[in-house]
């Protein structure tokens, strides 16, 4: 019994010796193949594989920054960015059989889309836009189908709720969201913000599993609060549009300023355009006429000649000036009044808008003193609002003014300014004779220094003279504002054509202030090239002034100060 197992054992051992070696060899060689492969992959092939792996999982993601909102002074939106999706196709990955499906979701004609993708494929391009600025819901519909080669990118579209009412002032952006016109361009850097970017690891289905590095945090653009009041802007636009249509005028513009602070409350021009729909957009309508166009102010400049005369101390409001016989010859040119007004006092010169009267005042002052006064009042000076296309006025130097030139600049010819500058000059009268720059952006502290132009008394005297203009005997009686006292000055200038002044083409201007006792608003209305029978500033622009002013004062809740307004006493009660 004992010999058998022993024999078996030796047999087993004998057999095992070669079998075991074989098995070990096989396993050993398999192991060494694996180890060899591992070593190979980890040493020789490693850089290549590592790079490829990173390429498949590592992504640099950019996050678009929201462009800041532009609002009016009460926070009503004037320009808002809404999210949209840019859809694009990689024609190399896109199979043409899917064209019909894409086209049906997008509501695009399949034939032309197919042609577009086919040409792109032939050209070997790997990027074409399918459609830009698509509504997020629609884009989601398409992207959910997960068609290969179709991608979406989140971006923003600019929308302007007030449309044509604020079009030229706010401006527009291009399809890439950069400012093109108006304040969108002027404050582009500030509004735009900076897009963020980060490095992430993504898994197969596109989920982020690890954030490696934040290169830049997305910074949303700043919000811009303007001094505009959308209600007043709308009123001004409506009345201006009505007047331009009624008089079949070429264009018009209006500027409404806060009399005390120089803040721009309304800035409109007509014709306008719809910034939300750029089909059929005309470049000329994009110009902000109140800022970019130069006009000759005509008689609206006369209050400043009178103010300069009063400041010289040689004249008082009741000083007599002889304007007879109603015309005057200077250097072969005849300056005329409407008729012979005879002897007028200084107030009367303004009331009747006498060219002879102001010419005599200007001659007494001389070119140097008049020029200095105009310059201090901001006439022919840059506004420096930073508006693109902002016009700088033109005012000849005193050495360039001969006796005729001096006479013409005293009644508003031979110098040029924008309606905005004219309005700014009128704020000198309402700010107690002080010149302050205009403001379009809301700011907390009112720190801008004030340059004295004339004394408080002179500014009051001129305001009282302006009130006589819109009395029944003045040239601007149609500018009366019901319920309020007002003052202003009419102006009519010949338009400048190819060969000098055009004979039968005019610019009608009215610049005024209300209420005159305690000025709240300054308004300048310019109607360019009215083609009806009426063309004088007092006939065309003054009624617009009246309508805008009345509604604006009411909206601003200014107490009616006209004596004719009926007053209701409430006994003992309190309101």
């Amino acid at each position, binding site marked *: 019994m004992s010999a058998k197992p022993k024999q078996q054992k030796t047999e087993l051992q004998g057999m095992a010796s070669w079998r075991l070696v074989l098995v070990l060899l096989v396993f050993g060689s398999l192991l060494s193949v694996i180890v060899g492969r591992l070593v190979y992959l980890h040493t020789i092939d490693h850089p290549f594989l590592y790079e490829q792996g990173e390429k498949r999982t590592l992504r640099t993601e950019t996050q678009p920054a929201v462009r800041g909102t532009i609002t009016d002074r009460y926070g009503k939106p004037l320009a*808002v960015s*809404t*999210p949209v999706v840019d859809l694009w196709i990689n024609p190399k990955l896109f199979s043409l059989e899917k064209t019909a499906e894409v086209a049906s979701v997008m509501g695009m004609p399949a034939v032309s889309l197919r042609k577009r993708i086919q040409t792109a494929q032939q050209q070997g391009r790997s990027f074409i836009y399918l459609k830009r600025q698509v509504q997020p819901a629609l884009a989601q519909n398409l992207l959910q189908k997960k068609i290969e080669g179709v991608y979406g990118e989140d971006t923003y579209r600019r929308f302007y*709720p*007030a449309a044509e009412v604020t079009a030229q002032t706010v401006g527009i952006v291009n399809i890439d969201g950069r400012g093109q016109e108006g304040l969108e361009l002027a404050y582009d850097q500030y509004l735009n913000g900076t897009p963020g970017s980060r490095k992430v690891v993504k898994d197969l289905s596109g989920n982020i599993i690890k954030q490696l590095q934040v290169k830049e945090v997305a910074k949303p653009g700043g919000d811009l609060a303007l001094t505009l009041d959308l209600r007043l802007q709308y009123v001004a636009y*409506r009345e201006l549009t009505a007047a331009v249509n009624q008089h079949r005028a070429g264009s018009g513009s209006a500027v409404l300023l806060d009399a005390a602070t120089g803040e721009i409350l309304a800035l409109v021009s007509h014709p306008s355009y719809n910034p939300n729909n750029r089909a059929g957009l005309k470049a000329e309508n994009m110009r902000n006429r109140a800022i970019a166009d130069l006009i000759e102010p005509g008689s609206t400049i006369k209050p400043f000649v009178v103010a300069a005369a009063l400041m010289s101390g040689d004249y008082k409001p009741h000083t007599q000036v002889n304007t007879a016989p109603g015309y005057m010859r200077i250097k072969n040119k005849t300056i005329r009044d409407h008729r012979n007004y005879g002897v007028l006092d200084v107030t009367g010169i303004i009331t009747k808008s006498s060219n002879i009267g102001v010419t005599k005042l200007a001659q007494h002052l001389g070119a140097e003193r008049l020029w200095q006064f105009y310059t201090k009042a901001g006439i022919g000076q840059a506004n420096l609002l930073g508006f693109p296309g902002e016009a700088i006025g033109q005012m000849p130097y005193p050495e360039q003014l001969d006796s005729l030139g001096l006479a013409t600049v005293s009644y508003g010819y031979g110098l040029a300014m924008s309606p905005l500058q004219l309005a700014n000059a009128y704020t000198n009268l309402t700010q107690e004779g002080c010149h302050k720059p205009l403001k379009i952006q809301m700011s907390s502290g009112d720190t801008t220094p004030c340059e004295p132009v004339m004394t408080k008394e002179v500014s009051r005297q001129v305001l009282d003279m302006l009130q006589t203009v819109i009395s029944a005997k003045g040239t601007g009686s149609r500018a009366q504002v019901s319920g309020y006292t007002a003052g202003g000055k009419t102006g009519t200038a010949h338009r400048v054509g190819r060969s000098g002044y055009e004979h039968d083409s005019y610019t009608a201007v009215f610049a005024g202030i209300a209420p005159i006792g305690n000025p709240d608003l300054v308004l300048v209305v310019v109607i360019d090239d009215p083609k009806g029978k009426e063309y004088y500033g007092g006939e065309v622009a003054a009624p617009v002034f009246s309508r805008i002013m009345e509604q604006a004062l009411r909206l601003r809740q200014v107490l009616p100060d006209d004596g004719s307004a009926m007053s*209701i006493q*409430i006994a003992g009660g309190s309101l």
Partner: protein
Amino acid sequence: MLRVFLWGLVVMSALLQILVSHQHRALLQQWQKQDAVRVQIQHEFSRLVLERSTLSAHNRLDQQARQKLQMTEPTQIQVLRK
């Protein structure tokens, strides 16, 4: 002894790293969800702002007031004083 202790530290820090990277992933996922919510709310907000400003557009109000409510501008101005 020291060797055992150091090995223990190594193993522990390795385990901690696993834990921390797991937490990182969880937090990242949470953050992504919240960010998606933020974007969605932002979209909703800008849509509502536009809707409100379209509905309260001045020319629309003007028309509605005149046509539906027969309102006009006051003509005879009366000032209430106490």
